[in-house]
Every structure is written in structure tokens, then in C-alpha cells.
């Protein structure tokens, strides 16, 4: 029986459905996309071959680079702030009593199961400059000078959107870390406690190193998830004002659907796919390369 399941044929049979879906929806669309990026296409008609002109136009566009700046800001917020916070939440969850942990787990997951549109609308109302929660709190504690029109000022719009993103997914990441913590054998901790290690030392010397596989997974998930950042921007600001809050994916959408320049839109898509592949490769290459067994 085991021999039967381990043959290449059986592996192929079991993998075929997923392979089929992946080919149809991920691999195949790349080819017409690359083809379209070399043409002047308005979404309705192909208006002719233009070679690499779409790529040149996009690479010389200030909106394209602003979209990159915004995207990598979100990636930065997600990875440099979101990941450590998620890990801290998971560690905190681990040391709580079971009842509190249950409540905590539910609260942590709650934002992640809500629709992005709902969450974004809630945050839009928080950020309302006239009646929103944030400005009302700031005014009530005498910090009126700190109030902002959060979603229309150039300096505040992206961090504001990033905060809502962070809030929605920090709990989910914490749950992933928590699941990882639960796989670490208890006797490691017992030995450390006998040796007199405190909580921080245990975290640094045992928990975090042994979480490297889960950390890698969360890192890839967070990085690529935030690179594909679109829905929050669409709902909260529609990329505006102007191009202020456009991310790369939003810029791609705006170029293709807003200005009907599908050729240029797909050129952005092709460039962005290469970026995502490069980043995935770098993470795979340099993060948690050695397999841990415990």
C-alpha cells in the first residue's frame, strides 16, 4: 500500500487537481499578459504592437515610483512592526490562563474574519476629520493641534491606511506564531527554568530560534500579502487624493481600468511579478535555511 502511494504516478494523480488550477489561473494568464504589455490595448481593442514602450513609459512615470514607495511602506509596516507585535502577542497569549487565552484568541481572530470592506469602512469613520473617533479623542484631551484630515493629507494617508491593515491581520499572525509555540517540546522550557533562565531569556534562546519555520512562513505571507495591497486602498481612499495613496497593484488597476491603458497596466503587472519573485527568492535563500528537527 505504502509502495503504491509513493510512486511518482500516484503523486502526480494527487497533485493534478491543484496543478490544473494553478496552471489555469496562475501560469496561463502570464502569457497573454506579457503579450498585452507589448501592445497598445485599450481594454476593448488591440491598437498595435509597441515593443517596450509601455515599460519605458511606466518606468519614467512619477506615479509608478510613488506607488512603489507606498507599497514598500506598507510592507515595512507589516514586517517591521506587524511581525514583532504578532510574536509578542503570541508569547503573551502563551503565558495566560486557559480562559483568558480563549477570549484572547477569539478577539485576535475577529478582525481577520471580517470583510476587508467592513474593516476599511469602520476605519474610514474613525479617521473622519470632522466627527471621527481619533480627532474627537485628540480634541477631548486638549491635543487639537495633533488632529489631521488623516485620509487626505499627503503625510498621513499611507500610515493611516497601514494602521488599519496592521490591526486587521496582527491577530491572525499572532495565532500562527502561537500555533508554532505549541509545537516546541515542553522539556526545553523545563530544562531552561531549572537552569534559572527568565522569561525573556527563554524567549530569545529557545522560543524565537525554534520558531524559524513559522517565522519564515509568516514573513512570506506578510510580505507578499502587503505587496498585493489593494482592497483597503480602494475602499478607504480610491488611491487618492490624486495618486497619493496608490499602491503598485492600485496603480496597475488605475492604469488599466481608469485610464483604459491596458498595455501599460499589464506592463506594471509584469514588472511587479518579477519583483515578487525576486523577493520570494531572497526570503527563501536567506531566511531560515537550515531545517530544524526537535
Amino acid at each position, binding site marked *: 500500500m505504502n509502495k503504491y502511494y509513493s*510512486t*511518482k*504516478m500516484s503523486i*502526480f494523480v494527487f497533485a*493534478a487537481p491543484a*496543478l*490544473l488550477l494553478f*496552471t*489555469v489561473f496562475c501560469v*496561463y494568464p502570464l502569457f*497573454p499578459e506579457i503579450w498585452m504589455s507589448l501592445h497598445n490595448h*485599450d*481594454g*476593448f*481593442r*488591440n491598437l498595435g504592437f509597441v515593443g517596450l514602450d509601455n515599460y519605458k513609459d511606466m518606468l519614467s512615470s512619477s506615479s509608478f515610483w510613488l506607488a512603489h514607495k507606498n507599497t514598500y511602506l506598507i510592507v515595512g509596516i507589516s514586517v517591521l512592526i506587524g511581525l514583532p507585535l504578532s510574536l509578542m502577542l503570541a508569547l503573551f497569549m502563551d503565558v495566560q490562563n486557559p480562559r483568558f487565552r480563549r477570549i484572547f484568541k477569539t478577539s485576535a481572530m475577529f478582525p481577520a474574519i471580517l470583510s476587508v470592506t467592513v474593516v476599511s469602512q469602520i476605519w*474610514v469613520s474613525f479617521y*473622519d*476629520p*470632522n466627527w471621527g473617533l481619533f480627532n474627537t479623542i485628540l480634541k477631548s484631551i486638549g491635543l487639537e493641534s495633533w488632529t489631521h*484630515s*488623516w*485620509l*487626505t*493629507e*499627503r503625510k498621513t494617508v499611507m500610515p493611516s491606511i497601514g494602521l488599519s491593515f496592521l490591526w486587521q491581520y496582527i491577530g491572525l499572525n499572532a495565532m500562527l506564531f502561537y500555533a508554532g509555540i505549541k509545537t516546541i517540546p515542553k522539556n526545553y522550557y523545563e530544562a531552561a527554568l531549572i537552569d534559572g533562565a527568565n522569561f525573556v531569556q527563554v524567549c530569545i534562546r529557545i522560543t524565537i530560534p525554534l520558531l524559524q519555520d513559522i517565522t519564515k512562513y509568516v514573513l512570506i505571507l506578510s510580505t507578499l500579502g502587503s505587496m498585493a495591497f489593494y482592497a483597503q486602498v480602494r475602499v*478607504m*481612499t*480610491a*488611491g*487618492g*487624493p*490624486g*495618486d*497619493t495613496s496608490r499602491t503598485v497593484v492600485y496603480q496597475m488597476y*488605475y492604469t488599466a*481600468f*481608469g*485610464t*483604459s*491603458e491596458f498595455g501599460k497596466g499589464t506592463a506594471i503587472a509584469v514588472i511587479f511579478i518579477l519583483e515578487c519573485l525576486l523577493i520570494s527568492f531572497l526570503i527563501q535563500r536567506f531566511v531560515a535555511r537550515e531545517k530544524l528537527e526537535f
Partner: protein
Amino acid sequence: MKKKAKVLSVTSMAVTMLLSLAACGSDNDNPSASNTASPTEQSSSNTGNGEKVKLRIVTLTTDENRNNIMEQYIKPNVAKALPNVEVEFEPGGGGEDMANKLKTYNSSGDMPDVFWDDAGFFIPLNNTGSIMDLTPYITKDGFLDKYDVPGALKHIDGKIYSLSSGSDTYFTPVIFYHKDMFEKAGVKVPTTFDELLEASKKLNANDMVPAVTPGKGGWGPQLFLLQQMVQIGDPQAMEDLVSNKTDFNNPSVKAGASRIEQLVKADFFPKGIANLDYGPAMEMFTSKKAAMLMMFTWELPNLAKDDTVDFFPFPSASDKYDSAKHVQYWGSPLNGYAVNAKTKHPEEAVKLAEFLAMMDAKYFESKGAPVSLNTGDAAPEPGPLMKKFIDWYNPIPTKIPSLALNSLDAKVSAELGSQGASLLTGEYSTDQFIEAMQKVWSQNTWFNQ
């Protein structure tokens, strides 16, 4: 075994790709597709065997009027009016959402039988043969004769592509206001731009938000605010811009953009106006959080329910403009219900488009709004606010078409919205706006087509 697995793998990949190609392909790249068919050339597939013809509609679902038309007029009457037709309604949203939906359907060869056409995406639809010339059908069945001015339905090529109630040409942007809020703040109806700024000061001093308009995505500036601000200073410059006789470097156009900047800096609009959506903007006005609303008169029937609401035309910024002599009008012969030229049931689809246009007309007429499609109903006496509007609007000799519908290709239209939203932030100067708009305007392809 290894070889067999490889063969199987490659074969399945190839089959998958072929299937995908077949499924996703459409013949829209073929520009020779015809969009003209006479009622006799294409026969309906309704064979008379009792089976209903299935038709799909994608139509506007953007505001209260549209939803009322659908729920109170179209859905209750469609089965009775077209007993041999089974209709599948699909909400299309409006504006950019509608355009995107139709682009996707058109690319995948899945266009609905009947859809709301818009000047913004007409040309590519026409070029791909996806929109039908309705002239032979509506001439033959006499529907064309129900219009007061049948010629107004014709596009510049002489064909008729869309059927509407004719109410669009009565839509114009005005400033609605709450009389009681004006009274409380000691504000008189402004007749000049300076008086408008003065009114803003007084309203702000009374802790009232002077005015709102939808600003998200630059809705207001794109559809009317820029046009109004240019027009109140120099209507001729606006007419010239609409007809491509001038550009954004025209000093009068620049002065118009500068007026928007002035309004923003005078706190005429609430903070965050650049991200204020249509619904919340309407809510701010109807709940009296804002004293004025800059909006098209398609909202007049709903706003007139509140006795404290009145309106005034955009006030003058120079002697060249007189609100009794110049006005912007909405609408284009291309806006209305259109039929997919590739529908399998052309006659039924045209009948459905006629029915939809008629339901629109009946609804607007029941609200006291003027329409140019004769419904056969006795038109009710318009309410006082509608009467005031008709008495002001009808005699105006110079009606300037909307820039947004009659002069911009998709790129310029999108950029006007985008740049207009930036102008509403107060962090973007008139010069930056003009420079950016002039750049895209110089590449505008609308007039080439």
C-alpha cells in the same frame, strides 16, 4: 513509468491551456464586426414554442432615483409589458465601476443583451461592434415618434445608439441650501463669487459647515465644479474648452481652477472633502450638517421633500456670466439604454430597452421632472421647487454641454478626477493642477475619433 508521468503531465497542461484559450477568447479584436442590423436581417430565436427569451441587463444602480425606478417601476411591470421575456437584472453601479464591468464583459465576449451606455465608453464599444444602431427598430415600431425631439437621440454619425427618458438634458449643477440655516447665520443667497466666500465666513463663524459635494476620486471637480468655476468667470472659455478650441493654459480656465483652490482655503468645504463619497456628502446636507450642497438637479425631486431646501444657480465671478443666460447641461445622446449588437434576440432586446427608457420617463415625470419621452400619462403639476427650476432653466439661451461627457477620453477623464481631488486637499496648487491637466489634455484622443 517516469516517462508516462511526464507525458501525462505535459498532455494535461496542454489541454488545460487550450481549454483556457477557448474559454477566454473573444473576437473583439476584429474591427470589422458590424453593429447594424435591420429588424428583418436578424431573426429572433423566440420560435413561438412558448419558451421565454432570456435577456440580461446591466444598468445603473448608483442613487436613490435609480433604485426607485428599478424597484417601483421596472421590476413590477416588466413581466406584464414583455410576457415572452425573462429578464436577469445585474447591478452595474455607475461611472468607473460600470465602465470596468462592461470592459471586462466585452473583452471576454460576455456582453449583456441590454446595458446602460455612457459617452465615456461608447467609442471602443462601437469600434468592437458591441453596440447596436437602434434606428431601424425604433423607427419601424414607432417608438422614435414618442420623443419630442427625435433628432436629439442621434449621435454625430446620424445613428441612434441609446434610449433615455430625455430627463438628462434637464440635469444641471446648482447649489442647494437650507433656508433655515442661512437665516440663522444671517446669510443671504449669494449672487457673486465674493458673496459666496462671504457667506462661507458667516456660516463657519456659526459653527456650520458651509458646503459639501462628493469629492472622492474628484467626482465634483470632474463632473461640474471645474466647469462651473470656469463658466462663472468666462462662459465662452468654457464653451471653447468643451469644443477643443482652447486648452488648460487659457487664463480663464486657470482662474476657474484657482477659484476651487480659493474655496478650499476659505474652509468652504469640510475637512476631508477630497475623500468624501457621494452618499456621505448627501447625508451631510440632508441631516443639516452642511448648509449647502453642490449637486446636479437629478437630486432635486428627493431634496424637495424637505421644505427648508431651496437652490440657487452658481454665482457670478465676472460680468461675462449671467446665470439667466448660461448654464451647463448634463447628458449626451449616447447616455441611455443600449442593446448589444451581438445579442441573439435583437427584437426583444430593443423592446426591453424601450421599456426601460419608458420606465425612467414615467418615474421622472411622476416626480414632476421634465422628460422628452411622451409617456401618455398626465404629467402631475410640478412642486414649487421643480417649477422654480423649470422656469429658470427652460428660457436660458446658452446651454453649454458638460465637459465630462463631451470632450474627454478615458485617460483625461480619469486624470481630471484624480487632479481635481488633489486640488480639493488644499495641498495642491492651481499651477500644479493646470500643468498636469495640460499635459494629458494635449494627448486627448476624444476629438481625433
